């Protein structure tokens, strides 16, 4: 079981590493946001899948990471992407400290609404404080160096589909490994325990509110690092990143992949990006179709794509049982 998961993860990383030359420039560019979103969603799902807390404001941390990237590269003129990622994590934590201290007191719809409210506040801040954030124009994110290398000979696209792609793959893989450790630690167990039964967890010595708060901080840091990774290809940190519909998109991606599985958010990011590209090429009404897909997932496959094999197995088994039964089941 564990060996299987490790093999699958290694195979996925190897396949993604080998993909650019086979896919070509356009499709490789398409895959870039998968890494940033994947990291942000790993963070979101620590709260959602493991903590039972659905944040509808997580785009604020993605935006915080993107703006951190803009400030570090554009204002401070520090080009190192490692510094950008650290600054993004710090910005996410700084924002999450007050927000999380308040939100960690609540659960369910109250938690969701409170995170939504803070997300909208943060969006307003980015939108209105023109002098600081560039308002609706956003802030430019300059091309960073990777491990001190400038790649001057490469044009923007060649940089993105080459070194930047592999760099982001490595960062995403390392952060996935880190998150894998966190969810399998005593802390991860305490987080799942409070999700299932907070009162019982307290009587077993789990500091429920502290556990939620720490999960919120980790989640925010992952969100911000993901945001910084997303901002380099677009070259822009803009307030729409923090808009509440973007928070909704993050939740959608997680549902699409399956919040009950560790790899669900990663698969969700990939599936969403591909699905959106495909639907946009089909019709201008692609948002309508995305909505239909979301409804279909919730109704037919609430465990998302990761839950599909189990769902199909259960359906098949039920059908076989019915076929094997000599008499029809009594009417209910």
């Amino acid at each position, binding site marked *: 079981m564990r060996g299987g998961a490790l093999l699958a993860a290694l195979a996925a990383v190897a396949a993604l590493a080998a993909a650019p030359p086979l896919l070509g420039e356009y499709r490789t560019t398409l895959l870039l946001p998968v890494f940033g979103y994947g990291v942000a969603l790993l963070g979101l799902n620590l709260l959602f899948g493991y903590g039972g807390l659905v944040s509808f404001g997580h785009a604020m941390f993605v935006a915080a990471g993107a703006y951190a990237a803009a400030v570090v590269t554009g204002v401070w003129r520090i080009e190192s992407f490692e510094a950008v990622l650290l600054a993004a994590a710090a910005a996410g934590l700084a924002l999450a400290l007050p927000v999380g201290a308040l939100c960690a007191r609540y659960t369910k719809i109250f938690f969701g609404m409170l995170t939504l409210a803070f997300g909208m506040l943060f969006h307003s801040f980015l939108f209105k404080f023109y002098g600081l954030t560039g308002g609706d124009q956003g802030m430019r994110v300059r091309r960073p160096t990777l491990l001190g290398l400038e790649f001057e000979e490469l044009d923007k696209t060649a940089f993105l589909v080459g070194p930047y792609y592999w760099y982001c793959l490595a960062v995403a893989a390392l952060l996935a490994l880190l998150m894998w450790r*966190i969810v399998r630690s005593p802390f991860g167990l305490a987080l799942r325990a409070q999700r299932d039964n907070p009162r019982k967890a307290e*009587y077993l010595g*789990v500091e429920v509110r502290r556990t939620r708060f720490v999960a919120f901080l980790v989640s925010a840091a992952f969100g911000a690092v993901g945001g910084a990774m997303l901002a380099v290809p677009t070259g822009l940190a803009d307030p729409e990143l923090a808009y509440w519909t973007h928070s909704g998109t993050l939740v959608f991606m997680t549902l699409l992949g399956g919040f009950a599985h560790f790899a669900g958010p990663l698969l969700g990011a990939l599936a969403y990006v591909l699905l959106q590209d495909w639907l946009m090429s089909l019709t201008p009404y692609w948002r309508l179709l995305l909505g239909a897909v979301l409804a279909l997932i919730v109704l037919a496959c609430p465990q998302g794509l990761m839950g599909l094999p189990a769902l199909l197995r259960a359906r098949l088994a039920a059908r076989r049982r019915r076929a094997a039964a000599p008499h029809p089941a009594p009417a209910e």
Partner: protein
Amino acid sequence: MSPPLLETYRVGRRYGDFVALRDVTLRVHPGETVAIVGPNGAGKTTLVNVLTGLLRPSEGWVRFLGSDIAGAGPVRLAQLGMARAFQLVQVFPELTAAETIAVGALAQAGRGRRMLASLGADRALRARVEEVAAVFGLGPVLHRPARELSQGQKKLLDVASAFALRPTVILLDEPTSGVATADKHGIMATLTEAARRAGVQALLLVEHDIDLVETYATRVVGLRGGEVLADLPVRAFFADEEVTAALVGRRPARGAQG
């Protein structure tokens, strides 16, 4: 006599004008199994909530192992060494039996906050979980999620996770409610045996089943109208017809003697 593990002095608790507890002085010593009995509304739940640090008394004080625990909360109580199992079964539906026991064992070891330690590689934890599970006969279902267990197994798991805290005192709130009559003595026997093996020094028992109280308790505290009406060794309690009539209704027809 050794000092009391758990002690209240003239504890009172009011809700507005309503007096839920009045002047309750109580001591629990090592080796005792103290049953708290009384009709509905006698203040049993309020007393238990005060004893477990959930409710702050309006008057008087409550100490556990010498520390003031008034309103200390369940986490602090768990750290100090008091565990509580509720009347209604409390489990974590999606956690396996092993994980459920591990939550208590990790808190007891002071390792519950660690973020990068691997649960899977923790041999000491696994040994401890298996040890606790064996006492409660949960070995065969250790890796099944709690939601898939039978009602009786859930009850045992609930209590097993509390035992994983290595408590000094454990409070059992109607441990056999929701269990078939035929199984009640089996569950109680498992619990008392587990308590003995786990080094639990005293048991507090809130119980309606008089037969069980008579069999397993060493002392009975009878509450009525928020006041202690009787605090007697079990034999003396059941010998006093006035007290038993007031607190537990008629005696069971057969004189069950443990």
